[in-house]
Structure formats: C-alpha cells, structure tokens
C-alpha cells in the first residue's frame, strides 16, 4: 500500500473521530494539524466547529508536537471564565508519550483531554531533503508509493521514503499513543498497550565508539551553526519552565553568547534536563532553522534511562521517571574506586 493511501486512511479516520467528539460534545476544541503555509511544513490548528473538521490533515510533515500547546495552556484552550476547555488532541505516538509524561509531571489532567490516537508512519527529514534539493525552490511535496516526491519550478525529484524520514522515526517503536488501564478513558482511535519496549540502540554504537576527542569534534561541528534562537526549546513539549536556565540570573550560571563553548553548554544542560523526560518526537530538530539534527542526543537520553533504570518516558502513567525516584540497588559502575 502506498504511503499516500495510508495517510488518506489515517486522515479519514481521524476526521471521523474528531467529528464525533465535537458532535457528542465530549470536547470543546480539537487540536490537530493543518496544511502549512510553505512547502515541507504543516501548521497547528484549533477547531471548534464541525464544518472546519476537513481542515484537519495527516501527512508526513506533521512534525509539531501538539502537546506543547497544553503546557502552559494557550488562551485558545481556556474559556472566558478561566476554566480549561475539554480538548481533543490529534496524537501520533510521540504526542501521546508527551501527554502521558506531562500528566506524570502534573502539568495536565487527562480527565479533560481526549487523545485521538493515530498510527504515525514517519516524519520526513526536512533538512535532509532540502540539502539534496540545494538552493532550488520547492513548490510541492507529496508522497507516492514508497517515495517522497518533491516538485519545483522545473524539476521533480523522488526520495525513498524509508531513507528520508527522521532518524528517530526510523527506530521509533511507539507509532501510536501508548495507553494503560488508568488512562484508557482518555483514549480514542488507535492507541496501544505497551508492556516492555526492547531497543538495542545499535544506531548509537558507532558514535559511542569514538574517542573523547572525536566526540568533542563531532559535537563542535554539529552545534557550530547554532544561533541560540531557542526554536528547539520552544518546540519541545518538555521545555515548559517559566524561566529557562539560560535566562536565569542570580547567579548567571552559563554564558548567553553564541560563542561555541556557551552553545555547547546550553545543549548539554538542556539534555541533562530532558533525561528521562524526552519523548523522542524530534520536533527540536525539525524546527531548527540552521538544520541542526539533535537526534543523537535524543537517542542517548533514551538509551541512558532505558539501560540504567529500565525506563521509557511517556509509556505508562504510573511509573515515576528516574529523576523523580531512586533505588538502593542502582548501578554505580561510574564511581571512582580504589585500584
């Protein structure tokens, strides 16, 4: 089955679910994806009227993590009296994970949210495609069979879909939102019960085998173009602090400049803050205007908490994340010991 047909099926199903939720007054507003204003993009949309349901789309450019709009709640999702509206949220796997994790961190209440589960089939790696197209202007992007088709003024280029999706999507094991007994009320559409995720993190092996110097050089090269626009932070559903550490004063712990060492520290501490919390949606990389792909760091975060604490963020609503808990028997092979 071609990707475009799958997308169409998902889209139809999603619209149907959204329409029912609105009709049955189970929700006041639907958050979903709409067509983007420029090619290779999509946009968020809030729908309160049944007529607008057909504006909802699903394709492989729906890279935004919609959970972001719930924490803090944007004004469109609050009624004039200040109460939370009931929200139906179109959720691919990583949006579902974000919702569950935000519930664990007491940021949202899944009682006033309906998770409209959809089985995501992968998000296109915008940067990789753009790089191939080079300077040429893209007018249209579509999927056909197993290919991504990019059309411009006087060209058309095909890319194998499996190769040109985000690195995170290639290894993704949570395509549709996770659910469990305690949150099944909130779930409609395609959600999955996940008991134990297996992952060998083979994709990290090559990088981790590098020497410290090679790693440092790689990281420097990766981040050297960062302008600290903080688009990554703004797109991240887990970056919801009132005052990000880089904006704190008294004391100002880390430099705010775009000098490379300050940039690296920003990404290092941000990674630290996302350990056991990152839901591997890849939104940070998708929105980066400089095309920096942070997937390696994302994968490392997932690997560390999985291997050390047998934890995967956002797949069950009952287990406390590793940084919120501790265990007498945790591994401590990294501690300095006498010879």
């Amino acid at each position, binding site marked *: 089955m071609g990707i475009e047909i799958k997308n169409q099926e998902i889209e139809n199903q999603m619209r149907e679910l959204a329409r029912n939720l609105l009709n049955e007054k189970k929700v006041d507003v639907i958050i979903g994806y709409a067509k983007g204003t420029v090619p290779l993009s999509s946009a968020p949309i809030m729908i309160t009227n049944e007529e607008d349901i057909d504006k909802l789309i699903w394709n492989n450019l729906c890279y935004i993590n919609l959970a972001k709009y719930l924490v803090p709640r944007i004004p469109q999702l609050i009624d004039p009296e200040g109460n939370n509206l009931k929200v139906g949220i179109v959720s691919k796997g990583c949006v579902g994970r974000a919702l569950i994790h935000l519930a664990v961190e007491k940021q949202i209440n899944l009682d006033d949210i309906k998770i409209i589960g959809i089985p995501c089939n992968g998000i296109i790696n915008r940067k990789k495609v753009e790089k191939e197209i080079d300077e040429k202007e893209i007018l249209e992007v579509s999927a056909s069979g197993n290919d991504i088709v990019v059309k411009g003024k006087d060209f058309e280029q095909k890319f194998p879909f499996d190769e040109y999706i985000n690195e995170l999507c290639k290894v993704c094991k949570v395509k549709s939102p996770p659910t469990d007994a305690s949150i099944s009320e909130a779930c409609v559409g395609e959600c999955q019960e996940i008991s134990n995720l297996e992952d060998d993190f083979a994709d990290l092996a090559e990088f981790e085998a590098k020497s410290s110097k090679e790693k*440092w050089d790689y990281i420097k090269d990766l981040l050297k173009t960062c302008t600290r626009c903080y688009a990554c932070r703004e797109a991240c559903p887990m970056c919801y602090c009132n005052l990000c550490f880089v904006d704190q004063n008294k004391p100002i712990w880390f430099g705010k400049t775009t000098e*490379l060492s300050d940039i690296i*520290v920003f990404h*290092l501490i941000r990674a630290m803050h996302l350990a056991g919390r990152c839901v591997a949606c890849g939104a940070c990389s998708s929105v980066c205007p400089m095309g920096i792909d942070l997937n390696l760091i994302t994968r490392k975060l997932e690997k*560390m908490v999985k291997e050390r604490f047998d934890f995967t963020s956002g797949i069950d609503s009952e287990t406390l994340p590793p940084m919120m808990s501790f265990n007498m028997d945790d591994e401590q092979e*990294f*501690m300095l010991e*006498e010879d």
Partner: protein
Amino acid sequence: MTVKNEQEAEKSEEWEPKIIAFLCNWCSYAGADLAGVSRIQYPPNIRIVRVPCSGRVNPYFIVKSLTDGWDGVVVSGCHPGDCHYLTGNLVARRRFAILKELLEFFGIEPGRVNFMWASAAEGERFAVLIRKATKIVKELGPNKKFEKKW
C-alpha cells in the same frame, strides 16, 4: 623517547591541575578531616567546597567548574545507605550517572569529573581516591575545552 615526547613529559611534570571537590558535610568532609588528623599525605591539588549532602550538588556546579577552568571536579558523598539525610545520595547518584554519561557523550574526557563515596571513617580511602583522581586529571592535561575564543 623522542625529543617532543620528552618535552611534553617535562611540561606535564611542571603543570599541576587544580581540582574542585564538593564534599558532603557528614561523611566525606569528615573523612577528609580524618585523613588530616591521621596525617595521611595526598597531593595538594584539591580545593574543597563543603555542601550539606551530595544531593545538594546540582549539575550546574559541576559544569560551571569545568567552564570556569577547573581542570577536574570531584564529588564525594556518603556510601549508599549511610546518608545523613537518608536518601540524598541515592537521588544524587542517579543525577551523577546521567551527567557523567552525557559529559562523556559530548566528548568530555571521562576522568575530568569523578564521583566517589567516602565515609567518616575512611580517611585512608579518601586520600587514596584523591591521589587517584589527581593522577587521572594530571594525565589528561589542562582543561581547555571550554576556553572562550572571544
């Protein structure tokens, strides 16, 4: 040994790293005191900062120490189970495990930041581990990764 290696060896003999050490008040700081009372000698490279508990040590302290030019960082707490605050060191241990792995993932040499446990009775162990940490950092050479270019 080539001339160049010789020069480097000489240079590293002259050079002494500066290491900042965050010690919990109840076990490790007491262990460091005991090393003193017992007159156990260890290299004079560490500068000790007393904190109530290893659980107090925020990753900021460690990363800031590195960016501010300390050549090495040591964090020492009570052995698991001995924490004066019951579980502060267990909370800290998870945090340190992640931070250490992340630092190494970013290309910081594994020996720059060292976590250890030392009890109030382990003056000898404290000295042994500080000797070891000092040796490791010294072999790594000066910490220049975060030196500002401008």
